Structures are given as C-alpha cells and as structure tokens.
C-alpha cells in the first residue's frame, strides 16, 4: 500500500490532575490511508475523543501529549526528541502553533463534533458562519464565498438553501445542523475529516440519511475520514477499517468484515454480544460484567482482565501489545490478547481467575464486598 495520509505512532496523552495522572490515551498507533473511513470505536471513557483532539493538538491544560509521533502527509504534527538535559522537547520539524492554526486545522484536517448546536454560534446566521469560514480559509471574496456557501448547503441536502442561508441555527433541526457542519467541514476540501460521534444525537432515520450522504460525498471528494463512535452498527455500515479502544489503548484492529466475523479480542466479542438486535428477538441480553475502570489507575496486565470472561492469572501479569494475528496473505488483523499462541506467555497453563463477572451489578464499587 502507498504511504498513509496520517500516521499515528505510540501516541500518549495524559491529564495531570490533583488526584494523579490520568492516562487517557496510552500508546495508540494507527494509520489512515487516502479515501478510506477508519473507525475508532469504544465505550464512553475509552479515550476516543482525547485521541482525536490530540491529532489536531487541541488538548488543553491539564492535559498534554507526552509521547508519540503524528505524521500527516509527510509533515510532523507532533514529535518529540531528547533535548540537552535528557528532557523530551518538540522536534524542529514539528509544525508551529501558527502553522497548525492557519494551514492544518480546517483546511487540511477538519473536525465535526457530536453536538451541532454547540458548534454553531447561535447569534450569527448559518449562512454567515459558513461564508466567513470559506472566505478566510479559501481566500475568496465575500460574494464568491456566499455563492460557494449556498452551493455547499445544497450539496448536503438543505432544502431551499437561498432562503435558509439567512436563518439562525435554532431554526434548523438537529439533522439539518449536522448537515451544515458537514458542509463546513467539506467546504475547504480537506484531505481528512475527523467525525467525533456526529450522528449520536440524531434519530435513526436522520442518521441513515446523514451516513448515506457522507458516503456519497466521500466518493465524490475522495476525502478520508476518522469516524469516532460507540455504535457498532454505525461501524458496520460506514467504516472500512476499525480500531477498537478500551481504556486508552487500541485492543483490536481489523477490516470491518473481519472484526464482526473473525472477532479476536474478548472485549470486542462482549461488546457485540451485549447489543440488542433489531432483526431478531433476544430474550436475555448478555451484558459485559462490571464497568470500565478509571484511567487514573488502570488494572495491571491486560486492562480488560477485570471484566474478561477468559481471564487467567497471566492476564494480570502480562501487558499485551497488539500483534498481527492474521494468516499470511490476509489483511492485517491485530489484537492485544494473550490467549492467542502468537503471544507465547503460557496462557494455556495459567489458572483461570475470578473476575468481576461474579460481582454482578455492584462491580466497580466492589471494595465493600471484597474488603470482607
């Protein structure tokens, strides 16, 4: 395959709080190639949003990117080197704040957030906001930008765009607002769009419309997407490749079909099993036991071992890095689980351990029970 458009190596983002260091993103690596939709999926608290903000260097204090490398089209968005005193310092070729602001954000990499109401300014007209964005980023005159803005609104399926141009965000429905944001993201024809749960707040019917539109537009403009979501159905529908995150780490990565049909990691499997199905009646759901632990004090070894049905002693001790488990000639399919032979840590001989699976509902607040 050709060079990736965006490449993330061992990215680490931490938040330094009074209670300790929260390792929100802890060494994730993934690539995005031209013209594909890469999924980033996980439950709340998995670190999906922190990861995407890190890509644009939008993490604010007390958070900080503390390690790793982000390369976009051959340019270094983030990279560290060892300084004089052994302290890590930004590399010389890392883009400056100004370059990020003026060249990358919006123009090269655009981002769409979950809540369209919060992303639009309520006191300016929708058209005005879109026009301003195009005017600044594409150096067009006001009239040309307005024309372009109206074209974009029509492109994303806003009815009667000339008259809607002068309306305010509150006069738009949720789905319409999200369409406007997609228009805004596409307006500068960026190479990469990061979509952070853009359809989560929408109804399924509207979600379907938006996903269909995104697919059409993606074909037309050949834009790459990073699609952040917690919804496996959306992943199944729109993504080409998927990264599954759990507690700051990517624990499985595969082509979308492999992920659903050749699931490797027990967490991914559990996530799929816990979903109610629309196409058949299920009498008892099979939930994942317990709740996700805090990123401030993650479990030792494999971070999922505390909730894993397949956990053994060795899982508590060995921290697995994702490894490619696919057969030769197949697409890469990596997972971070020691139960596969490739890890060679003696999983088979290890003793199964009691997990929170036995703690039932009160898991996550188990100290009172465990203390007795």
């Amino acid at each position, binding site marked *: 395959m050709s060079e990736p458009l965006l490449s993330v190596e061992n990215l680490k983002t931490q938040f330094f709080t009074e209670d300790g260091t929260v390792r929100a993103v802890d060494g994730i690596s993934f690539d995005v190639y031209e013209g594909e939709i890469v999924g980033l999926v996980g439950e*709340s608290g998995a670190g999906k949003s922190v990861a995407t903000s890190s890509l644009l260097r939008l993490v604010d204090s007390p958070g900080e990117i503390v390690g790793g490398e982000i390369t976009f089209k051959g340019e270094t968005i983030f990279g560290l080197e060892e300084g004089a005193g052994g302290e890590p310092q930004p590399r010389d070729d890392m883009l400056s704040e100004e370059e990020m602001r003026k060249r990358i954000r919006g123009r090269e990499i655009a981002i769409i957030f979950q809540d369209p109401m919060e992303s639009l300014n309520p006191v300016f007209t929708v058209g005005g906001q879109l026009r301003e964005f195009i005017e600044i980023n594409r150096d067009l005159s006001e009239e040309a930008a307005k024309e372009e803005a109206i074209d974009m609104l029509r492109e994303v399926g806003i*009815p009667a765009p000339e008259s809607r141009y002068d309306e305010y965000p509150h006069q738009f429905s*949720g789905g319409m607002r999200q369409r406007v944001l997609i228009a805004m993201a596409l307006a500068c024809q960026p190479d990469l769009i990061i979509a952070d749960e853009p359809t989560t707040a929408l109804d399924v019917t509207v979600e379907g*419309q938006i996903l269909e539109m995104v697919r059409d537009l993606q074909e037309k403009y050949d834009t790459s997407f990073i699609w952040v979501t917690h919804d496996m159905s959306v992943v199944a529908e729109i993504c080409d490749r998927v990264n599954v995150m759990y507690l700051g780490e990517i624990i499985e990565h595969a082509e979308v079909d492999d992920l659903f049909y050749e699931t490797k990691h027990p967490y991914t499997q559990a996530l799929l099993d816990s*979903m*109610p199905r*629309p196409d058949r009646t299920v009498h008892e759901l099979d939930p994942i036991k317990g709740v996700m632990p805090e990123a401030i004090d993650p479990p030792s070894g494999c971070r999922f071992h505390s909730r894993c049905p397949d956990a053994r002693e060795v899982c508590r001790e060995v921290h697995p890095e994702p490894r490619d488990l696919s057969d030769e000639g197949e697409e890469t399919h990596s997972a971070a689980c020691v139960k596969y032979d490739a890890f060679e840590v003696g999983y088979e001989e290890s003793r199964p351990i009691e997990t929170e699976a036995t703690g039932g509902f009160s898991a996550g607040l188990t100290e009172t029970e465990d203390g007795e």
Partner: protein
Amino acid sequence: MSSPAGRRDRSEALLEVRNLCKYFDNDGGLFGGLTVDREFPFVSRDPSNVRAVEGVSFDIKKGETLGLVGESGCGKSTLARTVLRLLEPTSGSVYFKGEDLATISGEPLRRKRQDMQMIFQDPQSSLDPRMKVGPIVEEPMQAHGMLDEEGREARAKELLEKVGLDPQHYNRYPHAFSGGQRQRVNLARALSVNPDFIVCDEPVSALDVSIQAQVLNTMQELQDEFDLTYLFIAHDLSVIRHISDRVAVMYLGQMVELADKEELFENPQHPYTRALLDAIPVPDPRSGGRTNLLTGDVPSPIDPPSGCRFRTRCPVLIQPDEFDMSEPEWSAVVEFQRAVKRREFETTDRREIEQRYFDTVPAGDAGTLVEDALSHIADGEWDEAEDLLTTSFADASVCATENPAYEVAPEHGDGRHYAACHRVREAAVATGAAADLDAPGGEAVGELGADD
C-alpha cells in the same frame, strides 16, 4: 406477587388512555404570537397551538410492557407526562384502575401518584447531588407517609440490593456512582412506594451498550418480581424489541400503529413503521446497510398536514381517484412535487427537469397539470408551481382528505393490530372509531381530529 407467567396475563387493563390531546400555547409572553407587517394594521396577532399529542388512545394491561417509539419531537415524552398528569391534558381521558385521572386534582391526585412512578432519561440530573442515595430512595415513602423512619431505611437498603447495588452504598452521594448505577438508584426510588405502573422515559439511552444491557435485564427481573407494568419510551427499536410485549409507534403527535411486538416487527402495516424498521442500523457489515430511507424532515406540529400526518414523506402515497396513472408515473409525480416544494434543484430548464424526474410525462389531466407546473418553473414562478402541484396531487389524495384509522387481522399472535394508514383499508376488519379501542362504560369516543 405473581408468577413470571403473570406478565402474559392480558385480562385486565390497568391504564386506559382515550383520545388524549395535549396542546401547548405558542403565543406565550408579552409579544408572543405577534407578527409585524409593513401594511395596515402593521401588527397582527396569530395565536397558534403546538399540537404535541392529538387523539391518542391505547390500553396497557396489568403486568405488560408497552413500548412507545418514535423520532425526537413526535410527542412521546409529552404523552408520558400527560398520562401521569404531570401535564394537564387539553382533552381526553386517562383511566387508571378505572378512575379518570384527567378529572381529579389536588390531594386525591397526589395520593394516586403513589401507584404511578416515573424514571427519567438522564440519570445525572434526576438525582439531587446534595442528597445521599439512601434519603433519595426514602423521600417518596416519606411523601406518601409510608412506614416509620427505621422501616424506611430498612426498605431503602432492601431495594438497593434488589436493583443490584450494595446496601452499604446507602450513605454515598450520587456522584460516586456511574451512569448505570445512578439509573439503578432511580429504579429503587421509583419502586420505593410500591407502584403498579412505571413510566420509563428513555431510561437507557444515556448509557453505554454494555451497561444498557445490564439495566434492561434488571428491569425485566424487577417486573417479574413486583408484577410491574411499564410504559417504556425509547427511540431505539432494538431496545424496544427486547423489552416490550406490545409496541406503539408515534409520528407527529399521533399514534400510527399499535400491535404485539412480534406482529409489529414482522408484519408492519404502516409505511412509517416500515421506514423506521428499515432505518435501524444492524451491527453486521454484511447486512447491506439501510434501505428505503425517508427523505425530508418531520413537519411542524403547529400546522401538521391534514389527514394522515405522514403523507408529506410517505413513500406510498395513494393516488387521487380522478387520475389514472401507472405506479411509476404517480411516484415520479410525487417525487417531482416534493422536489419543487423543497426547491431541490436550481435549473429552470424544462428539458433537464423532465429528464430528471420523468421517463415519460403522464398523459391526460395529470400530464397537463405537470406541463403547467413546468411552465411556471420556466418562468421562475416557483410558488405558483408548488401551489399547483400540491393542490392537484398531494392534497387531493385520500391520505390528505380523510383521517385513517383501521384495525387489521394479525398474522402473529392474537392481539389487536391498529394501523392508521389508508393502504390497509381493504384488509381492515374494523375502521374509524371502531378500530380505536372502545371507551370504558360505553362512553362515546369523540371523532378523531374533530377540533381541526
């Protein structure tokens, strides 16, 4: 207490809702409903109502779960609140155990609330952050004068255990709990006064899928144990399919279909239900994605479409009798009419539009009308073209002129299957008010939409 089989007992209706309407004033405030005009009298006042819920009737039997589903803004929550009399109904009645809640108020109503509880969507904001969970669970008991202080504490602890929390969490504040656990506290609080009926307004939509499954399982266990009746509101059809016995589908303030769960999912009759079912994403990359997506947005409930409210987006709108077009021709006309209404295209070039929407322009009257509309567009008279197409095609359909209400014979199970769509009129076993449920005590049911 009843056995788990008690859930299937269909004999007794606990709640009967008849022709319930709830309108909201749209002209509140000092300048509400005022419009400024350039001509005399310069200012006009146009009082209008948001018709959030209109003419809704259904029964909930003891021990069953009625799922209520619909898109945001269709009036699900308003209906739930009106049923509990948290909102005053504009008209209609709600019989709870035979007594009409719409007519009582004050202390009798407050006492009635002991039997009806509600669980809200956001587990965070429905718990007082400054109260510990023990007192939170005890508060409804105190309000209804149940037990003494010690008894309440013992019951609170027992309930915490029942909903899957540790009784020792009695002294914790809500912030110490995760979202799923907070929703369990809400469950315990609702259960504390030993209600018969619980309205669950999107109780799991704020939770992660894995946690959602845990809470849904607990809710089912509690239902079996305490013989609870749920009105379960959700926008997620997968959740609805999992938990409900019967399912009601709402669109723009009206109920469009109501049937047993299997029947509704396997044999949906209303095009809106079908569209909703088609729109559910399936967690399977080989499923081929969603098909037959609806176009357009939900119309405003201030001025909803006449007749069937879904007709402006319906993929199978019925052709008016005066025309004799083939199915593809009629579909093309409908698509063209909607495209003009939405100003979907810019071009005024006749040939181009014709090619885009029609293989062949239909013959006869319909063809003449389309030609006229195309001429209007060519002259830039969009409004005239829209009016012409809308009045001669969309508004002439039976879907626009008559309110649909039919009952069809079910294919799955033996429950009644109500579908408000004129497409089923031939197969219907009952129509109009008869398809609706009969009012208890032989009271006449008002004509649907009589106050138009």
